[in-house]
């Protein structure tokens, strides 16, 4: 994993684990790497990893059982709402970017359709 310079590392780790959960790399209830493993693997201060895990526990994204490691939540509704949120975020971001270019909604829709069709025929 490559980190960008601007954001704190712990928020980037949370975003990465969220993404892996949303796209199915990590399944509901699956065990994720321990803090130690991740610190070693990423070469990141273990207290920074701890901060990411603590925050994910507070969000109920992960559950840590004492002495048994950390697991993704088994809450289906939480997964669905995360997917929803991620989709909304990505769509609104691209549409707002296109609007800032001065494109009308009709033009944006046409451009998106064209892109999708080209993707389908590929």
């Amino acid at each position: 994993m490559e980190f960008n310079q601007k954001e704190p590392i712990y928020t980037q780790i949370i975003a990465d684990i969220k993404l892996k959960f949303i796209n199915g790399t990590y399944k509901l209830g699956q065990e994720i790497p321990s803090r130690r493993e991740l610190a070693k693997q990423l070469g990141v201060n273990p207290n920074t990893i701890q901060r990411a895990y603590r925050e994910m526990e507070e969000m109920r994204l992960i559950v840590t059982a004492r002495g048994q490691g950390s697991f993704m939540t088994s809450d289906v509704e939480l997964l669905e709402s995360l997917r929803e949120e991620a989709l909304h975020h990505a769509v609104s971001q691209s549409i707002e970017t296109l609007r800032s270019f001065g494109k009308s909604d009709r033009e944006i829709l046409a451009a998106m359709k064209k892109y999708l069709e080209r993707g389908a025929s590929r």
Partner: protein
Amino acid sequence: MIKVEQAAKMFGSKIALDDLSFSVEAGQIVGLVGANGAGKSTMLKAMAGLLHLDRGKITIDGKSPCRSTRERLAFLPDLDAWYPWMKLSDIMRYMQDLYPDWDGNKADHLLDYFHLKRDSLIKVASKGTRAKIKLLLVLSRQAKYLLLDEPFSGIDPFAREQIAHAIMEDFLEEEQTILIATHEVSEVEALLDEILFLDDGKLLLKGNVETLKLAESKSLLEILKEVYHHARL
């Protein structure tokens, strides 16, 4: 805990440390960051008991730097400090005789990890190899405090990653307190809990790296640049 209170040091008319006060909590990795001549090496040497302050006080777990604190503290100097005829095995034997906390198994592990050879002659070793040797000598001791002066200077990114990895692995095992002096903040950022930013012997900034970045929404380098320009106004 390392506590520095109003530390001051002059070299001739040059101020190296200008009334510096801070403390380093146990079990943290702290970056001592600043340009060349900011006072980083002077600070580390004073902590290691290798030079005396003009004024002020340093304590390590409540004691001033002396023989007994030296035993719990491992120092990696910026400059090479060995005889030209020495082989790595000579230095390792020397360290073993000098420090009761020398851990032969760890030294063997690091030799292996860094692909170093016992009979290699230090004088002709490359910069990257010398950096690895110096780190091996420090990490092979079970010291509670590690003071590393520019452990990444002049080495390639590959060796850099190996060295960072070795430091992290050791920290996970022993939870020492580690101070890393560097002028290249991006090289150590991911390893740090805290940063101490020095300029002209003064402390310009101290804080938790992740908290600073979260509060400012900027890279650490940008934050340091701002603090630096503000101080120069």
